[in-house]
């Protein structure tokens, strides 16, 4: 129970040479290879608020600066703020650090949502400058376009029957260099004095904000705090980079866990699990117990061989070949299912439904921090390809089992 779902101990090699546990890999049936998060293209298909689980359209999210209007975070400890009534008005408070809006400048208000956010004092100036730069951009684009078009002189002679006169006027205006309308800044000549008291005065740290709070609210200048709007989260869709087919796509709703498209590696590749914790003693041959499970709905033929690299433990077990029946949902209910306990040979010691238990012998010759057992897994499963004839080909990947200290 303590070792429930130790997913990071068994690593499979992806087609891009990255190592990842099988649960984090995907299998592209069109290309017949394993894919991981590094070799898939990510797209965001849904932006939503993690607290109210409300879907926010991408355009709306952009105008709201990727923040939710209804949900707020505490500026001190980042927990969710909850709304409470005090008479007619509503205030927000944090259940962890007991910060409340009474400590900010807006103490209460009539509605629970739409609390004012801190504003940038330079906002107007910055937007003015941005508009100006956009005009410059259009101007430069028009100047580049001159080379593509023929002469503009012809336009002045045409009548305005087809609206060409207007187009000509517009183009001529775009070519003019726009004037600078944004406010100009004068350089400062007089600086504030630096007094010794800036260095020697005692600062009361309990009243000032922590570094994390300041980073979350850069406009707060260290003292004013307002409730922070909860940042929105995005949900990913994974796509194979080679054949551009989707590998994983969830249904539309943010709180859904049902997949429209799912090509998880677990359903196509036999899964290797550690059966028991291995105790490796230096010098001598130790048994390693692993189990191989077939999670797919088709039969799988499996070949497992040792891959004796320099950095991995030497495995003395010869090649193991066996076939695993498909995973059957209905047979889960039989707790007394057929499991043969008599070992078929030295290696295959247990068979139960769609899994086998194997005993591999490894030779431990020195004390190491992390012992790795390298294996090559070959499997044949008719589901591994979209076309049925190609499905009968053997697929191969390398597997690393992290065994711990010796």
């Amino acid at each position: 129970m303590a070792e429930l779902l130790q997913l990071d101990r068994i690593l499979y090699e992806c087609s891009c040479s990255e190592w990842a546990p099988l649960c984090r890999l995907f299998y592209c049936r069109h290309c017949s290879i394993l894919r991981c998060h590094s070799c898939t293209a990510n797209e965001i298909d849904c932006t939503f608020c993690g607290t109210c689980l409300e879907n926010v359209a991408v355009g709306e999210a952009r105008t709201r600066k990727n923040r939710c209007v209804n949900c707020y975070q505490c500026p001190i400890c980042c927990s969710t703020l909850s709304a409470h009534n005090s008479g007619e008005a509503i205030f927000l408070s944090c259940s962890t650090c007991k910060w409340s809006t009474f400590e900010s400048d807006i103490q209460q208000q009539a509605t629970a949502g739409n609390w004012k956010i801190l504003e940038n004092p330079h906002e107007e100036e910055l937007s003015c400058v941005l508009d100006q730069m956009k005009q410059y951009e259009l101007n430069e684009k028009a100047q580049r376009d001159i080379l593509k078009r023929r002469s503009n002189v012809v336009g002045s002679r045409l009548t305005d029957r087809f609206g060409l006169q207007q187009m000509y006027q517009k183009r001529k205006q775009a070519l003019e260099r726009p004037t600078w309308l944004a406010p100009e800044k004068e350089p400062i000549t007089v600086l504030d004095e630096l007094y010794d008291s800036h260095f020697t005065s005692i600062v009361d740290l309990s009243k000032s904000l922590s570094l994390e709070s300041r980073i979350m609210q850069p406009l707060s200048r260290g003292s004013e705090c307002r409730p922070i709007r909860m940042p929105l989260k995005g949900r990913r869709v994974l796509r194979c980079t080679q054949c551009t087919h989707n590998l994983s796509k969830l249904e539309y709703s943010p709180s859904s866990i049902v997949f429209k498209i799912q090509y998880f590696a677990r359903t196509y590749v036999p899964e290797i699990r550690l059966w028991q914790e291995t105790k490796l003693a230096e010098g001598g041959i130790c048994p390693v117990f692993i189990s191989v499970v077939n999670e797919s709905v088709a039969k799988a033929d499996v070949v497992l061989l040792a891959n004796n690299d320099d950095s991995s433990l030497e495995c003395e077990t010869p090649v193991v070949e066996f076939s695993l029946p498909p995973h059957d949902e209905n047979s889960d209910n039989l707790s007394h299912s057929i499991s043969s306990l008599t070992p078929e040979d030295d290696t295959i010691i247990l068979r139960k439904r769609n899994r086998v238990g194997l005993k591999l012998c490894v030779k431990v010759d020195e004390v190491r921090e992390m012992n790795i057992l390298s294996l090559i897994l070959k499997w044949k499963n008719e589901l591994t390809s979209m076309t049925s004839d190609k499905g009968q080909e053997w697929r191969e990947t390398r597997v690393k089992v992290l065994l711990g200290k010796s």
Partner: protein
Amino acid sequence: MDEGLVVVKLSPDEYTQTNSGNKIFKNASIFGSQNIIIHGKSILMRDCMLRGDLTGIRMGKFCFIGERTLIRASHRKFSKGATMFPMHVGDCVIVEEDCVLVAAQIGSYTHIGKGAIVGRSSIIKECCKVEAGAVIPSDSTFPPFSVIAGNPARVVGRVPECTQELISQAAKELYESYVIQR
């Protein structure tokens, strides 16, 4: 680890099996059992406490509640007073030892680590993983597929997409691996 191949034996003096397949520790403190609905094939381990007397608790199938875990419903304050809200625990929820769950809702296929505290009225959606020792503040909500850790708890990662099948299998294998000896 492969729970499908391991068998844990429970003594019939301490554990009993109900008609719907629930394996319950006999001396578990279950108050108000008429308000507690467990859909079946769940395991309640030693010394766990379920407070059904405050309000209803509904659990799905294949749940595993570890030793000394406390499950009780939460309340919400309104202007007219407080109301106790029933607690919904989904299917295949694996809760390890020493946890305190005061949540309003724990989604299916969730794995809650040792010693986690889930605050009052919080909502944990499906396929989440709460790390050991996490302290989830009250009234918080977590979207599906999040890994939740820390004090106060925050989302620190994503679980693999195939979590639903992983946990569903792990929960079923856990249930089968605990056998009450006759």
